[in-house]
């Protein structure tokens, strides 16, 4: 039975809802006729859409329909029940009739159910759509909020911005309006507007500063001009000296004629009586030595005899003054400090005071250059100092790198090893210094002269080491024993310095001035060229990476002079850092090399560079040339050029690299390499002119 009903239903639905609804129009009274009309119209669109139908129907009515259908069903069921319980033959027909009715109602229910589902789905879709819209609006809102926040921050930043001009100390407002020209101040605009006002004030500041800068420049040029004038005047003054000298010279015959030298000598001896003991010893010994052994030595006394005489008078009593100043100090405590400082300064000056008389020694060398030595005696420290000056017969063109060679500060440094003249030789002095706050004498030597040890010895002063003692007596024998050696050393020093001076002048122009009597040490053709010779600072030398060995060996003291030479051939550049000991030429200049060619080569990564260094540093004796070997530096540099030639020419050619050798071998060599460290033939053999290994 059930199956049959179902099949009917199916059939019914296959005709379409409309048909079924029409069939049971009586029972389905609630379906509104308009709806059906529109449904029909819809049907004409060839397909039937339940979704579309949903829109046309009223959910309320559907609900009514539902309720009504359920009631009908209940009623039919009850009637069937009733009929069945009654039994009878005609019952079956009635039951069948009711069953058909209830089937129709079921159809309606089913339809309603589907409609309900579609509605639900639609409702959901709508909700979802609405939700998405809301989300989008929310996002937009948040973006806007963020933007607002950012803009607010920017605004605060702008408000907090500190302009540079706030740090500039501007002139006050009143002053500004008073002084600034109206085209800058623009009072009518700026009075009300603080921004414009500040701008105007800044303009005025700029204007003022510009003017001041102009003024400064003017002052500078003025100063320059004055300096130049001073220079000219100085030159005039210094030219006066030789003229006066020549006048003196001219007057000599007259003096001689009038037997005045006796007079002069007598006068000098008279003056000498006022010399302090050490200077007196020096004076006597130097004069004696000059007369006996060295006619080129002349001795003179300088300074005011009257002042020297005054020294022996008892000092005037200044007790009253002192008590006065004491009283003053008590009164004004504010002035106390400067007074103390001045007092200490005075004390220092007093301590370092030198005797008004000094002894001048003029030592004339063979080439007419003169070493002027002025000896002073520091009375309170009981030491002697010397100032040196070298004058030459011909005017010297001073090469830049020779700056320190003849400077009074360094010309006599380390005449004896280690005697750099920067420390006081008198151990007692340290205690005196402590009292007045002098740390070391070093700061004063430029002014006072250098207290070299040999100076003390020439003056007969002998200081035992590490043992302070106050009574040091000037001793003639000590002075005499040192006179000859020291004079000879002084002469050698001056000559070697002058020789260096001359060599430097050539070196700076890239010329290695080999003299003819040293020519045999080198081959005729040397291709490598010196291109640079400059002086460098001690600190710079210490910092070079290839000079570590010399620094560690303690050969780079601060009394030495330092130079940098550059030798070039083609693409090869050889740097040589040179230490020039003040004891040149008995102590040779020391070279450290760094070759830039196919990589950087120094003594630590190339045995041959090491060998080149030892060729100039250790084998320097064969480069000395004729005595007194002042040409050593030049010869060493020339040797370096030759060594670089040999190094480059004997470098083995890398077969894998195309092209000719950069440096064809021109030097005659017996063998290219020798020994385990593959030394190159650096030794030059005169007169055959070939190179061999050492």
């Amino acid at each position, binding site marked *: 039975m059930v199956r049959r009903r179902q099949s009917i239903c199916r059939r019914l639905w296959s005709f379409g809802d409309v048909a079924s609804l029409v069939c049971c129009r009586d029972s389905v009274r609630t379906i509104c006729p308009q709806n059906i009309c529109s449904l029909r119209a819809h049907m004409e669109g060839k397909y039937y859409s339940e979704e579309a139908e949903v829109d046309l129907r009223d959910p309320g009515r559907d609900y009514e329909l539902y309720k009504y259908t359920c009631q009908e069903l209940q009623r039919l069921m009850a009637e069937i029940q009733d009929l069945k319980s009654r039994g009878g033959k005609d019952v079956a027909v009635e039951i069948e009739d009711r069953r058909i009715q209830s089937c129709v109602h079921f159809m309606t229910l089913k339809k309603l159910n589907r409609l309900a589902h579609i509605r639900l789905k639609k409702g959901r879709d709508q909700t979802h759509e609405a939700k998405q819209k809301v989300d989008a609006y929310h996002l937009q809102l948040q973006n806007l909020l963020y933007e607002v926040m950012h803009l607010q921050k920017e605004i605060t930043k702008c408000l907090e911005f500190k302009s540079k001009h706030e740090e500039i100390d501007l002139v006050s407002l009143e002053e500004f309006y008073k002084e600034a020209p109206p085209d800058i101040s623009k009072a009518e605009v700026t009075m009300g507007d603080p921004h414009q006002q500040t701008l105007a004030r800044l303009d005025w500041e700029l204007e003022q500063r510009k003017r001041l800068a102009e003024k400064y420049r003017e002052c500078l040029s003025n100063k320059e001009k004055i300096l130049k004038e001073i220079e000219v005047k100085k030159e005039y003054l210094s030219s006066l000296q030789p003229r006066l000298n020549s006048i003196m010279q001219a007057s000599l015959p007259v003096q001689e004629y009038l037997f005045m030298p006796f007079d002069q000598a007598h006068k000098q001896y008279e003056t000498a009586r006022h010399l302090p003991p050490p200077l007196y010893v020096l004076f006597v010994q130097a004069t004696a030595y000059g007369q006996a052994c060295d006619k080129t030595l002349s001795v003179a006394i300088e300074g005011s005899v009257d002042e020297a005489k005054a020294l022996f008078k008892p000092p005037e009593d200044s007790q009253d003054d002192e008590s006065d100043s004491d009283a003053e100090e008590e009164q004004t405590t504010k002035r106390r400090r400067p007074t103390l400082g001045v007092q200490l300064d005075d004390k220092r000056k007093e301590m370092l005071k030198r005797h008004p008389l000094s002894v001048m020694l003029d030592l004339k060398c063979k080439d007419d250059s003169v070493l002027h030595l002025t000896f002073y005696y520091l009375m309170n420290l009981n030491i002697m100092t010397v100032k040196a000056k070298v004058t030459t017969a011909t005017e010297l063109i001073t090469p830049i790198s020779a700056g320190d060679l003849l400077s009074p500060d360094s010309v006599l440094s380390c005449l*004896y090893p280690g005697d750099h003249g920067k420390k006081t030789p008198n151990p007692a002095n340290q205690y005196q210094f402590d009292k007045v706050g002098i740390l070391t004498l070093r700061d004063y030597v430029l002014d006072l002269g250098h207290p070299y040890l040999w100076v003390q010895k020439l003056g007969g002063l002998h200081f035992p080491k590490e043992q302070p003692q106050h009574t040091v007596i000037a001793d003639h024998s000590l002075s005499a024993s040192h006179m000859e*050696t020291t004079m000879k050393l002084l002469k050698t020093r001056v000559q070697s310095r002058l020789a260096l001076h001359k060599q430097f002048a050539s070196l700076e122009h890239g010329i290695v001035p080999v003299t003819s009597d040293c020519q045999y040490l080198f081959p005729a053709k040397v291709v490598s060229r010196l291109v640079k010779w400059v002086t460098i600072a001690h600190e710079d030398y210490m910092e070079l990476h290839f000079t570590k060995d010399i620094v560690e060996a303690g*050969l780079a003291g601060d009394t030495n002079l330092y130079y940098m030479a550059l030798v070039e051939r083609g693409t090869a550049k050889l740097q040589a850092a040179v230490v020039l000991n003040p004891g040149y030429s*008995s102590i040779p200049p020391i070279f450290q090399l760094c070759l830039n060619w196919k990589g950087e080569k120094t*003594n630590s*990564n190339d045995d041959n560079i090491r060998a080149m260094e030892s060729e100039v540093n*250790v084998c320097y004796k064969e480069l000395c040339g004729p005595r007194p070997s002042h040409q050593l530096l030049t010869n060493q540099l020339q040797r370096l050029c030759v060594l670089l030639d040999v190094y480059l020419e004997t470098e083995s050619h890398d077969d894998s690299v195309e092209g000719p050798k950069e440096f064809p071998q021109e030097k005659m060599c017996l063998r290219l390499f*020798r020994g385990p460290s593959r030394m190159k033939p650096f030794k030059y053999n005169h007169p055959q002119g070939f190179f061999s290994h050492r």
Partner: protein
Amino acid sequence: MERAVPHAVPLGQMEVFQTLQRLHMTIFSQSVSPCGKFLAAGNNYGQIAVFSLSAALSSEAKEESKKPVVTFQAHDGPVYSMVSTDRHLLSAGDGEVKAWLWAEILKKGCKELWRRQPPYRTSLEVPEINALLLVPKENSLILAGGDCQLHAMDLETGAFTRALRGHTDYIHCLALRERSPEVLSGGEDGAVRLWDLRTAKEVQTIEVYKHEECSRPHNGRWIGCLATDSDWMVSWAEYRMGWQLQALPAEGLWLMVAGDPHLSAQVCGGGPALTLWHLRSSTPTTIFPMRAPQKHVTFYQDLILSAGQGRCVNQWQLSGELKAQVPGSSPGLLSLSLNQQPAAPECKVLTAAGNSCRVDVFTNLGYRAFSLSF
């Protein structure tokens, strides 16, 4: 009047000269005395200094014990090579070999026992002697160097018995294959030649630079050092029966190892890379990744020690791995010496010397303990 004697020359001159000499000193050779307690070192000024290893290694060693016990002028030129027999110290450099008695060497004014000069053909420049090699079985000494020949000298009579010719440039180094009277030589011409002493003939030639793997044209082709080692060869070769010869070429460095007559290996270094060679097949086995030319190489237990340019003593595994680099005090090393004299086990040290006046002493292979100094 009493006159003090002034110094005509500032004192500094001598001191500066000595400092410069020390600064430019190169120690070319070392040799341990037969008693194992002394080490002789020869420098480029021809001086030999004898250090007391036992004093320097003792617990109460002072600074002075690291200075030479005695220093004497042995040659006019550099002392390139030294070896010790059981009584003598043999030194060579400028063309002559000189013998000194170890027993008398510590006394002042020691004179050489004898001196010999191999028959040279040139007269313009005396060729140097770069390598000395003792052949204990024959009681002879092999000298090689500047004249491109190996000279064999009978130590009994002092006569030069043979000259082995073949090298086309001077010879840097020699090595002995102990179990057969064969000598290896390596030279500036880039060839390692194997000589049979019985027939005085050249048996084999390996031209290392021709092997692409180990050639380094920018460094040249020279062979600076060679080494062979029988102990190592026995143990190692038996383990790997296929191998017969190993060699290491580097810039001037050859190392040869020989054990059983059929098995031999060598290491060589110099211009080409440091390489371990298989002698029978003349093929390189291991090429050691060392850029700087090596000047000395030796086998030690199952390691290979090499030294050359650079401050370090390099320790290699046979497989070519760098096991350690131990820094020394010289910028470049030229010789290593292992003191393995059984007479002085307490003095068992490795010493290394080169481009400085210091001999570095390594009490173990890990670090430099101290330096002996000229």
